């Protein structure tokens, strides 16, 4: 038979609810269901074919398209290229308050150390209470060099000094921590853009909270537009996040998710696997 709007209206409504409950942002849900609906109406399915199964396959295809849209990034390949030229590779981390930037930096340095790279930390959050002590404790736990100045000093200067130090002393990777900030604060976003201009990192990573709702899309878009970033890390997936946030943020920015945070320990970071996420969502 040929599918009509009426045939699909109930399963599509149910799909909308399921996607929303799986934590996909409202705007991304509308995009997904309208893309599926337009492919469904007028579609011929055999009498025996289950229309729900047909819809599920279309959904899987639509989600895969969202995730395969960004150019994939092999971070270790990029690092290796610079390391071979004896130039340090620098990575800057940004995002709103409390998403897990500082903790993620600690996890990344563990990953890098396991691959044999030397890492230096730049304490460019010179603002928040306890920020420098927090990163310093991580550096002590992990046996890493940290570059820091006193609170209130210029974050861009700390980042630039860390890069210079890395070059002088042959460190492979510089990880730059920045203070969390709400993306609607013009001054703080300008400060961040300046830190990026001055330190010129090879890679900028947006760190988002997988528990965040529709706001994640607003955050990501504004950081992308005002400062720019190349990749995304979503944290706190161990809180039993359904993972819908990953769809929202990739749909909204076209940037790849490279890792997910799965806990508070140094090893609680995993490669992001779109197939795994889609299976999780559809289960």
């Amino acid at each position, binding site marked *: 038979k040929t599918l009509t709007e009426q045939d699909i209206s109930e399963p599509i409504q149910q799909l909308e609810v399921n996607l929303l409950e799986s934590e996909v942002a409202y705007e991304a849900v509308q995009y997904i269901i309208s893309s599926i609906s337009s492919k469904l109406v007028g579609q011929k399915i055999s009498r025996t074919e289950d229309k729900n199964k047909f819809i599920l396959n279309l959904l899987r295809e639509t989600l895969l398209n969202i995730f395969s849209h960004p150019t994939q990034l092999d971070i270790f390949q990029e690092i290796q290229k610079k390391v071979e030229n004896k130039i340090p590779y620098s990575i800057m981390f940004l995002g709103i308050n409390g998403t897990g930037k500082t903790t993620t930096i600690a996890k990344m340095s563990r990953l890098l150390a396991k691959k044999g790279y030397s890492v230096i930390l730049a304490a460019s959050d010179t603002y928040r209470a*306890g920020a420098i002590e927090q990163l310093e404790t991580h550096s002590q736990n992990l046996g890493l060099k940290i570059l820091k100045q006193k609170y209130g000093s210029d974050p861009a200067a700390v980042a630039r000094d860390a890069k210079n130090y890395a070059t002088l002393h042959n460190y492979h990777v510089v990880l730059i921590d920045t203070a969390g900030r709400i993306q609607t604060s013009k001054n703080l976003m300008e400060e961040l853009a300046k830190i990026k201009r001055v330190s010129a990192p090879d890679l900028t990573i947006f760190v988002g909270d997988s528990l*965040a*709702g529709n706001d994640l899309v607003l955050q990501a878009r504004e950081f992308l537009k005002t400062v720019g970033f190349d990749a995304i890390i979503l944290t706190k997936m161990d809180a039993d996040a359904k993972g819908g946030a990953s769809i929202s943020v990739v749909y909204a920015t076209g940037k790849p998710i490279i890792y997910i945070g799965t806990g508070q320990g140094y090893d609680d970071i995993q490669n992001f696997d779109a197939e795994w996420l889609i299976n999780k969502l559809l289960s």
Partner: protein
Amino acid sequence: RVKEGLQAAIRKLIEKDVVDEAAIKEFVRDIQRELLQADVNVKIVFDLSKSIESKLLTERTKSGVSLKERAITLLYDEMVKIMGNEAKIEPPQDKLYVILLVGIQGSGKTTFAAKLAKYFTKKGYKVGLICADIYRPGAYEQLKTLGDSVSTEVFWEKINDAVKIANDGKGYFVSKGKNLIIVDTAGRHKEERSLLDEMRRMEESISPDLTLLVIDGTIGQQAYNQALAFAKTTKVGGLVVTKLDGTAKGGGALTAAAATGSKILFVSNGERVDDIEEFSPTRFAGRILG
């Protein structure tokens, strides 16, 4: 942008020549969209909108203006039912009052502890802060720095027992004549069994007069299940919603209120220790709906 949402929906409704069933259903669908985009829990959105729809359908013979007022009143009343009216905590000044702060990682507990300390100091209470977070690197330094900025003493011990720290801190501050103690704890979520257990033991041991669940204003659909886990483990007596200086509408906090059966007491709208407000239901509803 949300301001357009509800106002546009209402305008659409009353500008119709005939407010028939279809017009009401369209209005309800518009409301659902606003609430979903504000991160209110899906089931709550559908329950709330069904209730409004049935009431409006039986009253649609009203004139345009009164229908508009009716729609707004219904919506507001449904939300107040969930988040509560204004409610202030007014602890006695002549005996000890202990407030326990709990919540998910990064929600803003430590920062809020200092804000609350300043809030109560201004009201004449003698406040003490306890750092009972034994996990997060720099947790004590963070609370100590914040405590210094609001001239409030911070108690801490370099031991591996959060419950003992809280108890020792309580004893210490009692001996110092404090009448209001705020206990900051480590972030935790519903899957971390041993941390939930620590929180339960902490509450049993120090018997706080009030346990506040600190909710990140940006939280999405997970708000319900996470808040429920906290409410099952401790007696959540109130909520704090943070980071409302951003673009988050805070629907997750509304959801958490429904899940815990408790009221929103405070709003945090900035990083500074002065960025704290007593909860205002009109302002909060306005934020969600416009």
